[in-house]
Every structure is written in C-alpha cells, then in structure tokens.
C-alpha cells in the first residue's frame, strides 16, 4: 500500500522520534533503511527527500516531509482520533496548545543540543572507534543539570511536561533519554526524584519499548 514510509535508521535519535509517534498511534508504516555509514543520506536520491542530508525523511501518500518534529506534529494532528492522543486533552484550546508548544521548543533548543552531544560522546563515538572527550562531557552535563533542575520544578506541579497527560512534548525526549540511561549521565536523571519518576513513566510505555527492538 502507498501509506506511510519513514526513510531513516533504526538507531538514530531523530528517526526514533518519528517511529515512536507511529507506534503510539498504532499506524502501519514501512521503515526504509538509509545506510549512514555509506553516506547514503548525503547523496541522491535521499537528498531529494531531505535537502539537508539528515535522517529521517517521511512520506504519507503523496505528502513528503522532513524534520522529525514537523513529522511528529503532522502525525499527531492528522491521526488525532487514532491510538494515543499526543496533543492536549482539549486540543482546540489555544492557550493549552501554546504551553505544549513551549515544551517542544525547550526540548529542541535547550535539551536536545546538549543531550545529543552527550549521546555522541558516550555512545556513537565508540561505534565509530573514537574516544569520549571527558571535558566535553563535563561541560555538557553541567548544562543538562540546569535544564533538568527546571524540569524538576515543573514536574512537581504537573505529571508531565505540558500538563497531566503524556503529549508530544514528553515523547520528543524519549529517544535521547533512552541512550543516556545507558551511560554515566544517567545519574543526572535518577538524582532528581520527579524527573526520575517521569523518565520511568515515559520509557516504560509499550511504544517506547518497541523502538528499542
């Protein structure tokens, strides 16, 4: 069937963000593997799908998209009635939507740049035979600690980041967190009680487990 295709790599944080959303929504899709080691993402035909040469790219029938957070938002809206609701419970309330949007911007601009650098240092570098730079780790962990302090305060007021239900805002964090839990950086999450609880909740979801396979 024409349906939904994801062009990416099953281990990539950004690809997993999209796969996670599809699993939450119980949507059928095909994962078309892109060979990163071979530089497939920097060449045609992949560049026609993502001119910036990054995974993932996405297709739903004749709609072609890239940028994982644009894709997840499309899926959440287009398939609103299906599977897990990833928007606010009152999806037409613009003020509540804006609160969720803040959290998505915070994840993209405050959390992810730091978390991705740590995942690169602790995990992906080793796959490429490079060594972890402990000075970078220390610097990035200091930044992450500040972000998680804000999250700790936020999660004392609400069960999840955008309110009392699981939304895209929480989901966007899952893939990077899953990697960091396998590294020494894990302590930054476990030593903050509410953050620790939140991490446990979002990583135990069946969809979150599916992307680890």
């Amino acid at each position, binding site marked *: 069937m024409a349906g939904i295709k994801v062009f990416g790599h099953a281990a990539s944080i950004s690809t997993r963000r999209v796969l996670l959303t599809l699993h939450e929504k119980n949507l059928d899709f095909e994962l078309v593997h892109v060979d990163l080691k071979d530089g497939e993402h920097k060449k045609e035909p992949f560049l026609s799908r993502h001119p910036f040469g990054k995974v993932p790219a996405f297709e739903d029938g004749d709609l072609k998209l890239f940028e994982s957070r644009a894709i997840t938002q499309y899926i959440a809206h287009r398939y609103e009635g299906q599977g897990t609701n990833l928007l606010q419970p009152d999806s037409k309330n613009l003020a509540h939507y804006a609160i969720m*949007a*803040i959290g998505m*911007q915070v994840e993209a601009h405050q959390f992810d740049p730091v978390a991705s650098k740590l995942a690169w240092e602790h995990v992906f570098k080793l796959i490429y035979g490079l060594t972890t730079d402990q000075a970078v780790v220390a610097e990035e962990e200091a930044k992450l600690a500040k972000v998680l302090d804000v999250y700790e305060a936020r999660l004392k007021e609400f069960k999840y980041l955008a309110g009392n239900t699981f939304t895209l805002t929480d989901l966007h964090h899952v893939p990077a967190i899953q990697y960091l839990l396998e590294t020494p950086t894990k302590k930054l999450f476990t030593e903050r009680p509410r953050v620790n609880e939140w991490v446990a909740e979002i990583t135990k979801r069946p969809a979150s487990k599916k992307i680890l396979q």
Partner: protein
Amino acid sequence: MRTILQGSLLPPPPIKLSHSSLLFSPSHSHYSNLKFTTKSSPSPPTITMASIKVHGVPMSTATMRVLAALYEKDLDFELIPVDMRAGAHKQEPFVSLNPFGQIPALQDGDLTLFESRAITEYIADEYSEKGEKLMCPGCNKVKAITKVWLNVEGQQFDPIASKIAFERIFKGMFGMTTDPAAVQELEGKLVRVLDIYEARLSKSEFLACDCFTLADLHHLPVIHYLMGTDSKTLFESRPKVAEWVKKITARPAWAKVVDLQKQ
C-alpha cells in the same frame, strides 16, 4: 540570541517580592511600562495596561521575532524592558515568567508564555482573524509543510546564523573580538543552508508556500543583523534568496520593529 550578555556577571543581589506581585507590578523600579500602539499618535506614550505584555528588549533577536508577529497582526501590546545588564533576566520576578532566564516572555491576560517560536505560533493561531495571516491557508498537509520550514529555521538556519551575528556584532558591543576563523567556518556551513533555500525559493515564493508565514518571519531578526555586516554577500549573491530577503525586510510591520531599536 536570547540573552545579549555573555561572559561573567557578578551574582545579582537577591530581590524579595511576594509572588502575587510578580506579574503585575508596574511600579517596580526596574520596569517602565511604555505602551506601543500601531496607530500613530501625536501625544507621548501613556501608561496603560494592554492585555498583551512582552518582557524583552528591542535589540534581542528573539524579542524582535515576537514583536514582528504582533505588528503583523496589528495587536496592541506593552513592551516592558528587562534590565539585561543588571541580570534581571536571571532573577525574580522574571524567572517566574521564564524559568530558563531568557527573554522574551509574553503575557496575554493570565496566560504566560516563553520561547519566541511558541509565542509567535500562539499569536498566529489565537489572532488568526486579525491582521496578516501568518500560516499557510489549508488543511493538515499544508500546515505540515509550514512546520517543516519552521523547524528548518530553528534547527538548521538559526544555530549557525545567530553564532555569526554573535561573532560579528554582539561580541564587539561587549568589548570582545570577532574570531575570524570561527566566522569562516560558520559561513561555510551557512552557504550550504542558503543553497538549499535558493533551490526552495525557485519553486515557492516564500519558504513554506506562496504566502508569507511565520517560517519566513522567524528569520527576520538574525538576517537583519547579518545584512549590516560582510556576511550580507552570502545572501546577495543568491538571486532568489536576495529577492526573498528584500521582500520580507520591506514589510511595514518589520520596519516598525527596526524603529523600536532607534528609540
């Protein structure tokens, strides 16, 4: 650039304010309320309480992003300056508006928001019937394309371009020197992004569709700064990009934002 000051500041003295006064304290000594309306008025600004308040400064790119959206929508607002030099953005009462300690923050009635791109999206949605439309007309699929290019600005363009603006402009303001090697490396990355924009703008009048949207607007503050530097050649040498820059910077709403810097 959400914070203008880099380098170390002395830790600010603690300010004790009762929580209830945090959001509505026009008499606080660090704040002065200036009402900016979009109608020209011969009398000096009056102190009134508009329902929309922006906490920020006209020099900040993130603040400018929000102001541009408000002017495009013909919305009345108050700009409440934040004393960056005194570190007001890192202390109460500001951090109750944005716990990350960055400008701008926006209040609309009893709703408080931060992150400029979440704020502009809220303005575009909440006031969709007012002023300019800032989203592509259409269904989920068209909205999705807009989101793609919104993410491109946030994830591909801004991280590079705002570092160049920092090197070329903001460093000089704070007595630091531009690092030419850094500028060269960053410009090497920016040209790859602008080549993609050139291809895109050959197929679409604006980035997301054939109308001006937030995806274009979000670029204005950093492009405005870069066009005042040698980096402007990167934009001018690409015909479609050059045309697009000219169009978006010529918008009357943008001229109003630039005017605020002169006051």
